[in-house]
């Protein structure tokens, strides 16, 4: 499954570690929430980047104490129709100030890219190669947005108010 980051397909630097697989001494690993919560300190204490795959039915609050020590949080879309992880993403970014990699996994198709980006994701495990290849073009599909959100782009309201200010200033 291609991993898209910074609009290009890259090799995944993280090893997906099965719950019963032995923990390697070093190297970046991605573990399940269950495995992580069994002994978070031991995993974090390793001197290599750590990522956690967080299920969409578990409040992200449980993850908050560890956020600044995680390199990746991967949120899950079991189906593209199931939008729970969209809320988790915004909460992690906007409420809890998470700055590491936020990765979308599961059924990720190109038509979700814009939504995912807007919710603060910056890495995407895309199902189809063609969709991964189309990332850059798809991400630029919209140039205006009504809502304020996490991707740093101005909302329509902000733009309108700015336009008003510059009008009245001139």
């Amino acid at each position, binding site marked *: 499954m291609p991993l898209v980051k910074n609009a290009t397909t890259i090799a995944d630097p993280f090893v997906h570690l099965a719950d019963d697989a032995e923990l390697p001494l070093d190297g970046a690993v991605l573990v399940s929430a269950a495995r992580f919560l069994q002994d978070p300190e031991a995993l974090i204490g390793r001197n290599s980047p750590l990522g956690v795959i967080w299920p969409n039915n578990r409040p992200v609050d449980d993850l908050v104490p560890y956020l600044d020590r995680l390199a990746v949080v991967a949120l899950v879309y079991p189906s593209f129709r199931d939008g729970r992880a*969209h809320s988790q993403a915004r909460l992690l970014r906007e409420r809890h100030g998470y700055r590491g990699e936020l990765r979308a996994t599961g059924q990720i198709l190109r038509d979700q890219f814009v939504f995912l980006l807007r919710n603060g994701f910056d890495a995407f495990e895309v199902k189809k190669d063609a969709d991964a290849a189309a990332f850059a073009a798809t991400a630029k599909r919209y140039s205006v947005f009504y809502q304020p959100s996490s991707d740093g782009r101005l909302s329509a309201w902000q*733009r309108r108010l700015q336009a008003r200010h510059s009008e009245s200033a001139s």
Partner: protein
Amino acid sequence: MYAYDEIDRTLINERVAEFRDQVQRRLAGEITEDEFKMLRLMNGVYLQLHAYMFRVAIPYGTLSADQLRKLAHVARKYDRGYGHFTTRQNIQFNWIALADLPDALADLAEVGIHAMQTSGNCTRNITADQWAGVAPGEIEDPRIWAEIMRQYTTLHPEFSFLPRKFKFAITASDHDRAAIKIHDIGLRLRQNDAGVTGFEVLVGGGLGRTPFIGKVIKPFVPGRDILSYVEAILRVYNQYGRRDNIYKARIKILVHELGLEKFRDEVEEEFLQIGDGPLTLDDAMIEEIRSRFTYPAYAKLSDNPEELTKASADPGFAAWLANSVAPHKQQGYAIVTLSLKPVGAPPGDATAEQMDAIADLADRYSFGEIRVGHEQNLALPHVAKRDLPALWQALDRIGVATPNVNLITDIIACPGLDYCSLANARSIPIAQELTRRFSNETANLIGRLHINISGCINACGHHHVGHIGILGVEKNDEEFYQITIGGRADEGAVVGTLIGPAVPYDDVANVVEDIVEAYLALRQRPDELFIDAVKRLGVEPFKERVYATR
């Protein structure tokens, strides 16, 4: 009218381009139907029995004459020359080819119309009182807030994949014409004791398999906080709404299962966390939207012009005036309802020719504005009273002056088994037969009486809240219909009560006649409405009458 700016225009053009690409990928076999289905649904495209159906949004039920002309154009160019106005201020085209849809959308985009989120598990078209801005006694025009909501919900990145569809309705009047109590979120504009404008917020209303009347979750949310509060509701729903069973996925079930108190606590907690964030609407933002609504330059006119007095001698005109013309907040003007329920016709359908003609009449008599109501009728919202006689003649010529508004023949009906792939039974022929059974004279004798018909439990025809509700069911491959009475959709909303076993297709109109006869015999005074008589008497006497001989 709300005037689109460059941002609004850019957004819908980008949406059209995106959909064009999605359709191309589907036709080329690059995405499966399963993947495409969700994409097309988010753009109002269903697959019905005979063809694709295309649902176009008419936000808060306001259309300009140019927009209506464009809808006529789409009906003519891409469909079979007519459209169907729905109970949620949308219009549906029944015969459109998938390959033509991107072009149809591009044509509509020229006049600022779109089909975004008219289906799918997202926030749907924001509906409002169809007389918003012209009804006497409003606190303010609720469409300003409806437009704010429309923008906030359009392509919302977090809430476009909810457990199930999500519907908002807004009113600013005490008399609820927007059916806010049967919506997922109902908003009633009001002022608190300090004179601050805000909303009473209702949640968890909805029809379908398990009907619920919406409950007040918060009696007052100031306008500045309304988006934050709505976001809190949506976020709680997105995370906790059931996704395991399509029939239990609406917010009404979550509210019911958690209990209103617990649900409210969750929302309050989230609302507190959101706090004074970027969704807080400061006055400048509200003013920004308000400033782009334009209002007619009304003239100073008499409420009793000579033209009106003269024309009232004509009984045809007098009947229409009494039935279809309502008071306007501006002296000398009136709101005119255009009945899309002529005898023997499918409720809510209008031909391209009618749409064009109505658009021209709107330009001539109503400052170029048309309204669409959830009862599947249209309205011209700003008609000078002195123009009423001329307008009446013109409307009569195109078949939209039947004086039956709010009467027994002003039936709400969903498309039913003639079109809909989910239907159990037909709705339209039942409605047609009923309009033939009751002459306009009888209908006036009966007085206000709403019949609502749905072809299946999904309740698009709002049968639960019809004074008489008719629901199509299937028994051994035959069409049967359950009859409820006593439902209503307004500020006193209640779900109707089933009167007994379902009756076969051929007997439905007879049953309705029996119910009406029972009512006429039992009412205390001629002005005791059917709905009030049912409330006073309960269903028993009606049930007895209907089933005594069956």
